[in-house]
């Protein structure tokens, strides 16, 4: 890594950028232009974000708070927990002294906002011994924390084995490299048997003991209850948005998926996240009433992304879909399986219920939620087993009336690349034209966006979708 990069703390840059962006959202156009000038690192992508209006501005503010809390954690006597996107952070907020930092979210932000993408941090991981073929979604910011160009973390707690080796491996490497305690929740290959449920619940309790031991803080039951109650509201709002997404045309703007899951990965249970969802629902309702598509143009096709939907460098994938009048019907990252989701009928008996009656029921709830996080639920077992990748993809594609499926991921993902050819064959058999993107969603050096876009053009045209 270039020596000068180690001099700028990454999370401080995030905090400053988002603080300014929040201000810019409230400013007049003239003030806005002036403010944007003072964030030289961003590659001009804040502008289109601001153009999205209220929900995006709330989102930027939410991230400003998230990173501000992070950089002030130490002076407030708090401990920083490094975690992964597929881990619900509610439990950290239920402690009085824990602040989470989610690597993947940082990677996406870095690659979207920074001119040089997250390459320097990725390469730094390799320089200190981490495998270069490991998942780029962690490497993108892990390098900053390993290099000391980020806040000092105190411990690592993640969803691990059974879901994604390369992800677990990155966190286990980071913990070891930095000499910090590590706890990984483990997941058997099945989801629904009682024994598995029991496993989740017991393992989760051991996690809480770990957080108590190494954080030294207090776990507050009232705080947990109010967080879960807020989560309940958030789930209901999300469900309403998703219910409306079934309409033709789909009134939900595609980029909302990114804001919704990024919010959930970082700020689950926070009132700001609730506000963002309300603002989104308002926009979606207006669209639905007027029969307008969330695309901002007439809808010509509906695509389901059966893995990841973001694309490095820019929001290329969302952008491409919108420009070509293709509605984004969600990805694996944007499904959480609460028991009132519109797709619950398609996946009976596999969703979670929020139960705030007592401490035990709340902990069980958290464990159940965590066991259904993106990837944790879907790719833990054989892809063709009940409730796994194929069934989930088919049910979601069906309920949202998708007309085609797209795989977009990262070469670091051994788990999906080991069976993506098989699931593609099955999706095709079920009548879904299916496209395989060979790019890296976080590292533009693997395949250029132009090539990816050219292949998308070709796919939609040749398969008669556009």
């Amino acid at each position: 890594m270039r020596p000068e990069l180690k001099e700028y703390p990454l999370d401080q840059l995030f905090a400053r950028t988002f603080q300014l962006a929040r201000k810019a959202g409230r400013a007049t156009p003239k003030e806005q232009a002036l403010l944007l000038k003072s964030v030289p690192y961003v590659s001009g992508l804040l502008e289109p974000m601001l153009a999205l209006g209220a929900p995006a501005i709330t989102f930027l503010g939410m991230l400003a708070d998230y990173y501000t809390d992070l950089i002030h954690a130490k002076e407030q006597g708090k401990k920083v927990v490094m975690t992964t996107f597929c881990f619900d952070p509610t439990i950290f907020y239920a402690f009085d002294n824990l602040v989470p930092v989610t690597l993947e979210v940082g990677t996406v932000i870095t690659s979207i906002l920074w001119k040089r993408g997250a390459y320097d941090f990725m390469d730094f991981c390799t320089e200190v011994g981490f495998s270069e073929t490991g998942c780029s979604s962690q490497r993108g910011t892990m390098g900053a924390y390993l290099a000391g160009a980020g806040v000092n973390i105190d411990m690592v707690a993640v969803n691990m084995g059974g879901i994604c080796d390369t992800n677990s491996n990155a966190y286990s490497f980071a913990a070891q490299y930095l000499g910090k305690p590590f706890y990984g929740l483990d997941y058997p290959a099945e989801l629904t048997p009682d024994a598995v449920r029991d496993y989740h619940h017991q393992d989760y309790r051991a996690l809480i003991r770990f957080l108590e031991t190494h954080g030294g803080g207090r776990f507050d039951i009232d705080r947990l209850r109010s967080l879960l109650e807020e989560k309940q509201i958030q789930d209901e709002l999300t469900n309403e948005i998703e219910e409306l997404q079934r309409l033709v045309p789909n009134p939900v703007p595609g980029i909302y998926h990114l804001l919704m899951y990024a919010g959930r990965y970082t700020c689950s249970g926070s009132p700001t996240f609730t506000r963002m969802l309300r603002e989104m629902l308002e926009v979606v309702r207006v669209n639905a009433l007027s029969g307008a598509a969330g695309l901002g143009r007439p809808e010509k096709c509906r695509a389901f992304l059966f893995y990841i939907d973001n694309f490095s460098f820019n929001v290329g994938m969302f952008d491409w879909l919108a420009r070509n009048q293709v509605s984004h019907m969600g990805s694996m990252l944007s499904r959480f399986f609460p028991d009132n989701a519109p797709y619950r009928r398609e996946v009976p008996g596999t969703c979670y219920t929020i139960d705030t009656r007592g401490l035990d029921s709340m902990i069980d709830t958290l464990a159940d939620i965590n066991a259904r996080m993106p990837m944790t639920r879907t790719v833990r077992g054989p892809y063709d087993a009940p409730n796994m990748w194929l069934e989930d993809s088919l049910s979601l594609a069906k309920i949202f009336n998708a007309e085609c499926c797209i795989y977009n991921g990262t070469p670091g993902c051994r788990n999906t690349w080991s069976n993506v050819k098989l699931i593609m064959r099955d999706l095709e058999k079920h009548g879904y034209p299916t496209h395989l993107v060979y790019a890296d969603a976080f590292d533009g050096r693997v395949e250029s966006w132009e090539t990816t876009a050219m292949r998308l053009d070709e796919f939609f045209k040749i398969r008669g979708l556009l």
Partner: protein
Amino acid sequence: MSIVAGCDVGSLATKAVVMERRRVLAAVVVRSGPKPGASARDALDQALAQCGRSAGDVSYCVGTGYGREKIAFVNETLSEISCHAKGARFLVPSARSVIDIGGQDCKVIKLDANGGLVKFVTNDKCASGTGRFLEVMAKVMHLPVDRLGELSLQARDPVTLASMCTVWAQADIIKHINARRPAEEICAGINTAMANRVAMLANALRLENDICMTGGVAKNKGVVHALARILGQRIKEVKTLDPQLVGALGAALLAAEQAGKVNRKELPP
């Protein structure tokens, strides 16, 4: 007067250096033919002819490089790592690090204060940090490979290559050509991509100053400058000898050491 020789049979070029008392008498580079033994013979014969000596004058010869096993006339073979380290230290006595980029290999070598080999890394993962990368790219650009360096120094706004892979990067280059980006900017992009890749290997060893660069690619100023910038360290250039010859030079120096040992043994007490 007895002389020593070093012979380095690389994948693309074969090099021979003839020395007498730590002084280079002759040095030759020939293109590697299909028979490495024959290429080596040819290179050494040319070098001997250059300094007017014959094969019988050579008291000790060390072979190195990919084809070293096939050289019939050597007394001993040693790896390129040892030879490059030796040669580099001879030319730049303060060198603690050597970056050698050959046709199909990239090696980063760390030395102690006495020139002893401490550690080395090579490119196992990807071929994009090798001379071949530059050759393939130059071919796409319809340029001779030795023009890449000087051209790139004139670039103001280098292109960024999206792909690191030697083969896929070609598609990128074509894209930039089609977008009518000036040749020097594309060349600079190629050199920077190469330097980034090499820097990753180099950083893994936490290199110490002085850094010396050897191998054919060291002649490409664009790569050398980019690499120095990325590493944030100065790179000492080899000025007195073609950097491609450093491996053969090191082999000759090691031959001289061996010859010395042999001679001492032969002398009566």
